[in-house]
């Protein structure tokens, strides 16, 4: 009975919403025009990066804060180690991981650099870095994390702290995260570099902290 009701409700929702979207009036505000008009003063050439780190930098600042918060909560929950025995990684996977990891780091740096004028940026680069760490962990070349030490903690929080420091420094000149146009370029690159390292570590930590097991406790 409940199943039927839910399925019927979902189907009605789909039909109504698609029907509404089909005769939706065109948007009254053209944001893409505003973005391309202000692009020269943003310090970067790609509109998505300009929106993420300049026009709506506030969102990105809070986003990295949310990620950090999620990691802290996971640490606070205190994960009990599991006793599952995982099959040993095959030598083929290990050799492939050894080959791929340096390439992935190069790709991450490229994505970070290219974000200023093409699709790319700190988040994509951080995701690639995290994927490299997870790959190495699955190939048993990198142990799971027990509890982060001081250096790791600094790396995890560094991106957020750099971002916050730049935002607070700019507060003296007027508004939060309102870069002066001539210095916006290197400020965004500084923030993005910090974000890349921290995001890579945080995303990897979300996996590596959850997957520690008794074998890692030595």
């Amino acid at each position, binding site marked *: 009975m409940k199943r039927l009701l839910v399925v019927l409700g979902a189907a009605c929702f789909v039909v109504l919403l698609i029907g509404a979207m089909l005769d939706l009036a065109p948007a009254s505000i053209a*944001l893409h025009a505003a973005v391309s008009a202000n692009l020269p003063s943003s310090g970067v050439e790609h509109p998505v990066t300009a929106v993420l780190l300049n026009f709506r930098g506030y969102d990105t600042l809070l986003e990295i804060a949310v990620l950090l918060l999620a990691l802290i909560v996971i640490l606070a929950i205190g994960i009990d180690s599991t006793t599952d025995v995982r099959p040993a990684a095959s030598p083929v996977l290990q050799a492939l991981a050894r080959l791929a990891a340096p390439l992935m780091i190069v790709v991450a740096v490229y994505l970070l650099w290219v974000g200023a004028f093409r699709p790319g940026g700190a988040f994509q680069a951080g995701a690639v870095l995290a994927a490299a760490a997870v790959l190495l962990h699955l190939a048993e070349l990198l142990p799971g994390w027990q509890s982060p030490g001081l250096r790791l903690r600094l790396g995890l929080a560094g991106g957020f702290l750099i971002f916050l420091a730049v935002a607070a420094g700019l507060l003296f000149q007027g508004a939060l995260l309102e870069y002066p146009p001539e210095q916006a370029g290197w400020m965004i690159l500084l923030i993005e570099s910090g974000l890349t390292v921290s995001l890579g570590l945080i995303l990897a930590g979300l996996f590596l902290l959850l997957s520690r097991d008794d074998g890692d406790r030595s």
Partner: protein
Amino acid sequence: MSAGLLFASVGVILFALGVAGVLLLGHLLRRILAFNVMGSGAFLVLVGLAQRNGIADPVPQAMVLTGIVVAVAATALALALVRRLYVLTGKIELPQDDEG
């Protein structure tokens, strides 16, 4: 129907599938996956509707990029909570409440 509208329609269907999954599935891992399907549907609606006139709008794209990262964090947190629940109770389901 433009490509943007098609994306948005698929997003609506994904969202409805996700909602049905969250409501109907008992296993918490499946429920987290359904929740992610729901989120992906919402992102697709945002991006699709924004480019229904053929012009890509960078603002919703940036918002969706932010949303994806936050969704990853939320999923990891949910998985950590599920593991804690499993360690404490030995089950991967929420306890049934009998009429309140």
